[in-house]
């Protein structure tokens, strides 16, 4: 990436961008698709947590007709970039279908050209490489090589919609009222360093993994350098990006369950590890010894999602808010309870997970993992 391009995406040459935020996630545990109405309503209710410089949504189950193909959402900051990117895409993928994403006028700032592709990797290029890896390599290549093109969504049967504006404006712009999905994660952003750049909005995505994040990682520098050893290119200079890649590395590539991953990202204190029973102590100690560089230090709450699973997690000393709730087959995660109440005044359960303890909802599994202490409906 040449210096000029770098200036464009990261105009202030920041080590990292950081942002305060609101996060909201909503998932049907039966996998039933539902409209954008409730997620948009909920995230807009937390308007004051964001400042209009970023909003976004990740939706799962939106492209049933193309569910076997990788859906690439790409933003182009110049025409030239699209031409270059199209050549890269053509070399890596069979493009099944592509179109300019439908948009409409809304209160958003400087929208780029937005394009959607449904692709399948070309097997003959590297027959031994798993398809996912092909996609990742292509994404990293596009994001770094062309400079003005960014793949902001690359999973199957899911899509990320994000940009500069309040979340409700972004939804309006992307015509989200036309989409149905079984899992929505949403983000309202309060960035602190940019007049607004579309790639910097949340959710962050790699394959079908998405992360929306509230907080700032003081450990970003080492988290990033650790991930770079594994081939991740952190081009977006945001701590959320490293979270997404960390989850990809640990969960997808290393196949660790979220219950373990949460013990890496929000590792228990040594005092707790030392006092755990020997077997568990052994595991926890090894995790910290091995993955210490991936300890996410500093305040955060995140909603991590991929197909069939939505995970809420806060840092180990619980410096950011996260509220979880269920109603029927619906699981909600939110920065503020009011957002949940707005879309579901009545709830079956509502609780605040403790620091470092994940809330996990899986399709087909009605049992929510997490520390619901008292589940009682306020009158």
């Amino acid at each position, binding site marked *: 990436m040449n210096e000029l391009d770098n200036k464009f995406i990261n105009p202030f040459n920041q080590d990292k961008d950081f942002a305060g935020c609101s996060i909201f996630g909503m998932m049907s545990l039966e996998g039933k698709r539902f409209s954008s109405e409730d997620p948009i309503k909920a995230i807009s209710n937390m308007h004051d947590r964001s*400042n209009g410089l970023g909003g976004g949504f990740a939706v799962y189950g939106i492209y049933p007709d193309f569910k076997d193909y990788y859906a690439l959402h790409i933003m182009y900051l110049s025409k030239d970039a699209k031409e270059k990117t199209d050549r890269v895409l053509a070399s890596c993928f069979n493009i099944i279908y592509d179109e300019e994403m439908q948009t409409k006028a809304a209160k958003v700032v400087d929208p780029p050209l937005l394009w959607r592709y449904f692709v399948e990797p070309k097997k003959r290029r590297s027959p031994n490489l798993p398809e996912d890896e092909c996609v990742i390599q292509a994404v990293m290549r596009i994001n770094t090589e062309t400079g003005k093109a960014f793949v902001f969504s690359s999973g199957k049967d899911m899509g990320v919609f994000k940009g500069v504006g309040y979340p409700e404006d972004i939804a309006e712009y992307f015509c989200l009222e036309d989409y149905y999905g079984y899992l929505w994660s949403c983000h309202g952003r309060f960035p*602190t*360093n*940019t007049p607004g750049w579309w790639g910097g909005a949340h959710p962050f995505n790699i394959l079908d993994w998405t992360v929306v994040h*509230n907080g700032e990682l003081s450990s970003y520098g080492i988290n990033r350098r650790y991930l770079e050893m594994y081939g991740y290119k952190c081009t977006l200079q945001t701590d959320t990006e490293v979270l997404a890649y960390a989850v990809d590395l640990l969960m997808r590539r290393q196949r660790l369950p979220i219950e373990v991953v949460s013990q890496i990202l929000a590792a228990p204190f040594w005092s707790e590890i030392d006092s755990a029973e020997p077997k568990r102590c052994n595991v926890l100690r090894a995790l910290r010894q091995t993955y210490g560089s991936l300890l996410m230090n500093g305040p955060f709450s995140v909603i991590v999602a991929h197909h069939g699973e939505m995970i809420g997690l806060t840092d180990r000393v619980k*410096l950011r808010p996260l509220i979880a709730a269920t109603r029927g087959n619906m699981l909600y995660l939110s920065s503020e309870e009011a957002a949940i109440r707005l879309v579901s005044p009545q709830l079956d359960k509502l609780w605040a997970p403790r620091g470092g303890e994940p809330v996990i909802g899986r399709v087909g599994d009605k049992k929510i993992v997490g520390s619901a202490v008292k589940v009682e409906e306020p009158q």
Partner: protein
Amino acid sequence: MKSYLPVDFIVERDESKCIRCKVCVNQCTYETHNYDAQDDVIRSKDENCVNCQRCVTMCPTHALSIKKNLGPFRDNANWSSEVIKDIKKQAETGGVLLTGMGADKPYLTYWERLLLNASQVTNPSIDPLREPMEIRTYLGAKPDALEIEFEDGDIDLKTKLAPQLILETPIMFSAMSYGAISLNVHESLARAAMRAGTYFNTGEGGLDSRLYKYGERAIVQVASGRFGVHSSYLNAGAAIEIKIGQGAKPGIGGHLPGEKVTEDIARTRMIPVGTDALSPAPQHDIYSIEDLRQLIYALKEATNYSKPVSVKIAAVHNVAAIASGIVRAGADIIALDGVRGSTGAAPKVIRDNVGIPIELAIASVDQRLRDEGIRNKASIVAAGGFRSSGDIVKAIALGADAVYVATAALIALGCTVCQKCYTGKCPWGIATSDPWISKRVNPEIGAERLVNLLRGWSMEIKEIMGGMGINAIESLRGNRLHLRGVNMTDTELKILGVKMAGE
């Protein structure tokens, strides 16, 4: 444990001049001097001396002088006497090295490498003695544009401006809490601010009810300890400042030990007498930028949007981005405190190693806010070791609206920067809560000294402006063309946004 520490200073007394009046004895709060009645002689314990110069100044016959103990240690650029003594001290106590005042190392200043402009021939300089020189400054959020109604030649302003602070000189007194400094110092600052048409900052220890009458010239601070924060306090001041950080100790909190919490201080801080007043580094309701917005607006709500809200941070690595976030969070004023910022007490290792110079912070924050088009939304106040009107003019030219001074104000009141503020025994009656020692500052004399300093500096600022051919400070603010750099790398010049001298 036998101490291996050598004395820092040696008291020299000219016996032929000493009249045994015992003024040195009663003025030294460290009990360095003792009168031996039997021998009718005054003796000094060198080990107690901190070289505050109090006794030297007060001695009616100039019989005293304090010499630095040039030290028993061999010269060594790496293992300097300071390093050796620090290690010994920690080996003897196992504690964190504490110090007072701002960083004392020579390598953190850029003011010396910035030079000011003056008019010659092509554009006229202005005689500041006879012609108007305006240095009035308003702090607070300004609108991007004004809506004006124009009807039948009558002009009416439709836009309602946000609340503003009005400064007759762009120099304010920086936050120093009651408790860290004495009430008399607070009162000196308050009176001086009142008379000079500027503001003093209460610091995080509240405002004594006796000083509420100076509220219109007070910026009341809210820090993590929330000491003395009460609706009447919030409404007493002209502005509210949320203290996030401080240049001398970014990321470190404050700690007023219980023995300094006297009855008056307890009343002002609204805590029981004698309890430790801990102000941890974080505001516990702010762990993210949107939380800051939440607090800013909580304070605006609590004062019905009648006062500007300032946010004070230490200048650190990402200062420009942080500042941008603060402005976007709704702050009307952003106060930046550089690495040379002062303190009553800070771990030495933090003070001397954390943060960035204020020059770079002003430059990068001002530029960033302009790049983002939000410079109007907040005023920038710079703090951290301003020593002269020259420093101040350079800061304003770099982009600050106004500056905060604290150390200079204390020096005006008598401080000799002996760096022992944390002992609470300040022989100049400044950094103390001891009602006996506090009397050494007479608020009236103190105010006069401070007003004199501001007057002198303001006149110098006008002189400099006149030389530049500028008669209003607006034309200096952010006008980096009036600055040139020397002895700097291209990167340094770039960050400061100034050209090399000669260019």
